[in-house]
């Protein structure tokens, strides 16, 4: 077997790490944002429980975005400039959404009680704005920032689908982390969100090869297509299993964690499919990993820090989820 020289493999490793950060971000902040988008459907007491269920995690979740975008910035500076220039407006809107959501977390409990509904609305609006903007950005990115009538339509479809996926993820998070009335309502929310999310996913899977010749060429060739078909098939099975589970009684009890875990599998599979479509590009058809990468010397210098920090971050994340495992308690006003 012919191994790549280390200096050439280095950008690929950074790309993998960036992809992993982004995947972890989308899943972990995905359920946060999903819970945020469900806020307006809940009673004031339920809102407190919902926020408490994500309280210890959201901060760390968002830092995966910083790590991902940070790697793009420092390891692939050319791509960072190109992508962010193309996505100028949606990035600004997403940031405004994330800022609103992030500060609402703190303000809603620290501000005067009369102001709480206002911050709850900011929480909802911020979550929705960030999710929509992320969907749009994903759509634009996957289609290589093409121009023509079909590209914006495609991006708009993803802009609607991704928030739906987040809502479903958020609802399943609540099924796992809460109990009683809120858990039953979360179950209803999950059922409502399932159909549009799946419809969107199917449409996008069909539209992606149509919109990008590069993607088409990578998927629809023998014999790869036989091995690759495992990805959509497993995704389909996982989604159907989620829907079937939502109709069972056990989902409120012993297997409350299963829909959430299955959805994570869906996200991971979609990510693998996407990664396969795009590799070896950073910006599809325009910039490859090696064209965009910083010098090997700079990557090695960053690599040292990454090797120390990332395992520590991963370790802490696992620890934190263990510490705060179990159901979120009811609010007890002292």
């Amino acid at each position, binding site marked *: 077997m012919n191994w790549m020289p280390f200096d050439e493999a280095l950008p690929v490793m950074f790309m993998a790490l960036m992809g992993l950060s982004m995947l972890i971000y989308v899943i972990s902040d995905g359920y946060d944002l999903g819970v945020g988008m469900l806020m307006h459907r809940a009673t004031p007491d339920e809102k*407190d*429980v919902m926020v*408490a*269920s994500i*309280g*210890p995690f959201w*901060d*760390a979740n*968002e*830092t995966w975005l*910083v*790590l991902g*975008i*940070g790697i*793009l*910035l*420092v*390891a692939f500076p050319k791509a*960072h*400039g190109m*992508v*962010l*220039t193309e996505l*100028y*407006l949606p990035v*600004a809107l997403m940031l*405004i959404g994330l*800022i609103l959501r992030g*500060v609402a977390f*703190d*303000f809603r*409990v*620290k*501000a005067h009680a009369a102001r709480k509904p206002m911050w709850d609305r900011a929480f909802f609006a911020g979550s929705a704005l960030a999710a929509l903007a992320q969907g749009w950005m994903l759509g634009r990115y996957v289609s290589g920032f093409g121009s023509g009538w079909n590209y914006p339509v495609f991006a708009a479809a993803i802009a609607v689908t991704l928030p739906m996926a987040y809502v479903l993820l958020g609802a399943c998070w609540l099924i796992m*982390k809460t109990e009683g009335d809120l858990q039953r309502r979360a179950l209803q929310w999950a059922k409502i969100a399932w159909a549009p999310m799946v419809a969107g996913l199917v449409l996008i899977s069909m539209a992606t090869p149509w919109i990008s010749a590069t993607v088409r060429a990578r998927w629809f060739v023998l014999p790869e297509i036989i091995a690759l078909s495992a990805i959509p098939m497993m995704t389909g099975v996982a989604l159907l299993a989620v829907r079937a589970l939502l109709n069972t009684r056990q989902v409120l009890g012993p297997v409350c964690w299963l829909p959430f875990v299955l959805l994570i599998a869906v996200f991971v599979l979609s990510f693998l499919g996407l990664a396969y479509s795009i590799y070896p590009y950073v910006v599809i058809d325009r910039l490859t990993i090696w064209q965009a990468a*910083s*010098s090997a*010397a*700079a990557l090695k*210098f*960053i690599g040292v*820090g*990454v090797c*120390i*920090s990332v395992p*520590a*971050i991963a370790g*802490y994340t696992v620890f*934190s989820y263990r*510490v*705060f*495992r*179990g*159901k*979120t*308690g*009811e*609010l*007890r006003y*002292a």
Partner: protein
Amino acid sequence: MDAIVLARMQFAANITFHILFPAISIALGWLLLFFRWRYLRSGATDVKQAWLNAYRFYTKVFALTFALGVVSGVTMSFQFGTNWPGFMERVGDVAGPLLAYEVLTAFFLEAGFLGVMLFGHGRVSERVHLWATFFVAIGTTISAFWILALNSWMQTPTGHSVADGRFVVESWLRVIWNPSFPYRFTHMLLASTLTCAFLISGLSAWQLLKRSAPGAAPRVLRVGLTLAAVLIPLQIFVGDQHGLNTLEHQPQKIAAMEGLWETTRGAPLVLFAIPDGQARENHLELALPKLASLILRHDLDAEVQGLNDFRDRHPPVFAVFWAFRVMVGMGVLMLATSWLAWWLYRRSGWTPERLPRALLWWLAAMTFSGWVATVAGWWVTEIGRQPFIVYGLVRTADVASQVTAPMIGLTLTLYVVMYAALMLAYVAVLKYMAEKPEDVLAKEGAEHAATPPAAIPTATVQGNRQ
């Protein structure tokens, strides 16, 4: 307006908003550690409770400040690419690793210890909690270290070489320990401490006026005033040294700060003027003869270079000139305030009831004076670097994005409106928290009750619920 001017305004709006919060959290971390330590060391129960209350109250302030710092910091990591795509393309090999280390450090701190500090109260031992507080404090300081190393390198670049328009690092030690870094780092750490000193003095004064937090406020006020009174003279000395360093490496920045157009022997110290960049002269100038030469060169007749020696290579004069005067003016006001207040407080035997109410009102009014001085100082140094993004080597215009002016204008408006609203909300919430500290701490109890149990074994918890 010009796209590049708008892009600069947008970036300036964002970093200005961002720096407000690190300016507080860098030093507040250490103050929390101090409060925590006083709590552990105190003997009498009421004293112990007072320090604990101070600690818990300012932990809330810290959490809020940190959250605002994080969200505005996230924005910044994107704006490098949206506003200055050419910057990372050209100096990515220098700036990238420094930023990466900042993110990783901040990351590590945030992931590792902030959670324990905020949520772990009463769940981990006193010792572990004290250590967590220490790591949060050291983490914010290390964060500042990397960012200021990069910023200073952009002002006084050393340790690199240039090949095909791209910067390559020759020596990391010389990149990090570039000539202006030690001065800027010290200046900023002191600025943060002073910002905090006035913040806690102001909030305590407000609490004394509103008769809330009776145990903690007098003690915290003493800490704040003492810190300010001791450190402002030191800050003036460091600032002067920083200025001399700037004179050596960036003479046109000094010329803009002084409003000096022509190279002059025995340059005057301009107290007031309206510098006119078009006519290249000062209107309504009021100056003390020869004093600038004395301050800058320690010699009444020494030569100071003027802006006309640096045509097309000097910053916009009006902004730098006035930002510098605002910073120095605020510094002098802070010095006078802290010395007077400290002296009066000491004379009253540290009993706040015997302080004149006007003084408490004045201290409350000065709560955010550190913000004004810090921001003005940053404006001097950042606008003073223009028209370069890396001083003398890369022009800002050469790395700007192709995004159109209306688009930048639109997002600039959105950002500014939101930042203004958030600043207002931040100040309003601090005021509310200062007036009702017990409410906020009670809510903290509720928050804890709602968070899933930490170190408690799951079995026990489930047992409790059934």
